[in-house]
């Protein structure tokens, strides 16, 4: 999905970097959530894709639980300062059990974004009209 985004100039390099980063430390943070991320020259600005995995995905998460919600984040190399801030916001977003479950259950992208906005986190990192692009997909 992100490979087709115009802000990603080299999809293959992006994919390789995601795998490379996972090799350092799994980004499965537990609670059924993973946040694979990479800061790379092949990305011109923040890009975020969200995927719901109905059956769960083995991700080598720290709690060994399958992952049902994936936030994939890309940033350019010169966004070092804000990159980690975005990661922190995503983690805070999914820490709340009720909200996390609603995000997993949301049927259309607008529902998902409304939950994000309601959490007052829908600014530069996740919300509509944010810098970069957001995508929501479903995988079964």
């Amino acid at each position, binding site marked *: 999905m992100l490979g087709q985004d115009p802000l990603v100039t080299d999809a293959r390099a992006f994919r390789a970097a995601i795998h490379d*980063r996972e090799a*350092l*430390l799994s*980004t499965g*943070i*537990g609670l059924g959530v993973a*946040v694979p*991320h990479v*800061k790379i020259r092949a990305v011109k600005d923040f890009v975020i894709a969200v995927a719901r995995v109905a059956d769960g995905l083995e991700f080598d998460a*720290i709690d060994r639980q399958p992952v049902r919600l994936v936030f994939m984040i890309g940033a350019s*190399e010169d966004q*070092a*300062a804000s*990159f*980690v*801030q975005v*990661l*922190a916001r995503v*983690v*805070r977003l999914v*820490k709340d059990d009720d909200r996390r479950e609603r995000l997993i259950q949301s049927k259309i992208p607008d529902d998902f974004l409304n939950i994000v906005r309601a959490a007052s986190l829908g600014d530069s990192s996740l919300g509509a009209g944010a810098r970069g692009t957001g995508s929501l997909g479903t995988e079964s």
Partner: protein
Amino acid sequence: MSQSHSPSIPPIGTTGRLLFLCVLVGAVAGVGAIGFYWLLEASSHFFLDYLAGYRPEGPAGEQPLIPETDTPFRPWVLLILPAIGGLLSGLFVYRFAPEAAGHGTDAAIESYHFRAGSVRARVPLVKAIASAITIGTGGSGGREGPIAQIGAGFGSIIATRLNLSRTERRALVAAGMAAGIGAIFHAPLAGALFAAEVLYREMDLEYEVLVPSFIASIVAYSIFAVKYGWSPVFSTPEFVFQNPAQLLPYLVLAVVVALGAMVYTRVFYGVHNGFERLKVPRWLKPALGGLVVGGIGWFVPDALGAGYGVLQKGFTSELSITFLLVVAGAKIVTTAFSIGSGGSGGVFGPAVVIGGALGGAVGLIMQQLLPNLGLDPGAFVLVAMAGFFAAAANCPISTIIMVSEMTGNYHLLVPSMFVCVLAYLFTRRFTLYEKQLPSRLDAPSKMGNMLSAVLGKIPIQRAISGEENFATFQESTGFRQIVKTYAETDQSCFPILDDAGKLIAVIHDRDIRHVIDQAELADLVVARDLSRKPQRLPADASLLDALRHMTVSGLDALVLVDPGDTTRAVGVLSHEQLVRAYDQEVLSASD
């Protein structure tokens, strides 16, 4: 035999080019001085001689260029002439080049210190014409200010045309100033020293402009003298100093000229500031000043114009104590109203006349009080000329030489040195030149050079001495470990090494600081997520190189690498360490 080439000495080609340009500046300034002197003479001839029938005596070394007229003396014309001159000068200056108003030396000093030696091309011509009008109509002003600004302007124009550096432009501006003064006062050595000394208020000298100033001054003086003669400006008797006891009355003279210089400066700037506040069009102010000058000139004509004739008579003790004191007082006021109102002219010429008049009066009094010391009041005139200006302008060295060259008399160097130094020390808080800086340490052009010179001499190793050990991370180092290490060290940046120990990235402390309280990152973030490309600097570089790297990158820490293998990190340097090393170097070099 080996030759070394110091990096602080410019290549011979650069120096040669600059010195050649000094010859050019000297030639242009010499021709400019000839033109300016002729303008002054022509203006005085037309206004004072032809219109007013007033023909003040000049110094013995300068003969009138134009035959005198037979116009009878008309005091009422003399009464209004300075106002007319002020009006013409004001209209002309404020229409074409307002910076040419007032006394030009300060403008040249300002250009040197604060405008990188930049002078508009039109200024020399406007200054020459405006000064000729002001002085030629009886305004009390000297030639040094105008010719300093004119010469400096020539230097600046040549530097601009040739697209020279700021340093070279400043050198040519100073050379132009020296050339103009050296030529018009028949004082090439003093002109060069003056240009280097007048820039600072304290005991300091712009030594790097001395050689350019000497060259330009020699050329300009030679050209001027070929046209107008090689004689000194004044002709003086053979004064001698052969009795140390004479230093006692010279001590009194030093006190008197110091007090006089303080009064001169206070009155000048009191009037100047008054005119600044006056709510009338600025082009009208020189005319208003001229009215006051004309009124004083009605009673004391010798307080008008250059006034050098008074000095010439003073050398031979032809004037009374009362007359000398009146001229000194009146000249202080006429100068303040002529130039302080915005008229165009210098303050050196009036200063030596005021000083000389005071000196003549002191000499006559001392001669009566101490008849056995063999005092010559004429010698007091000469010494006081130097002492007064040394005190007023904080230029003791060049003034001693200036007066000696102007009079062709070097027999009074000892009392001149004595009086000049004492008077200068008495009045260090006063100066006629507001744009003078206290010392080279205060010069904007020097600060950057001094900082660079100091930093360029400090090796990085000295800055990190005692702090050679440093922490590093691997790309997989977790967030908790990063925060823990950050808390335990003072490092500003942390190199990230690969498995082979090669430098691949760096984490800066500010990137950790931004997220240090976000515990939720503990299981998600590793060193790679916080990393940036490393700014590498060879460990054998200087702190100046380090500062440049930091400035360009906007970062306040650098990774130091092996000069032979830039993938091997050997240390880190923070901005704080850089500043500390600089402070230590400066403090160790200070008293």
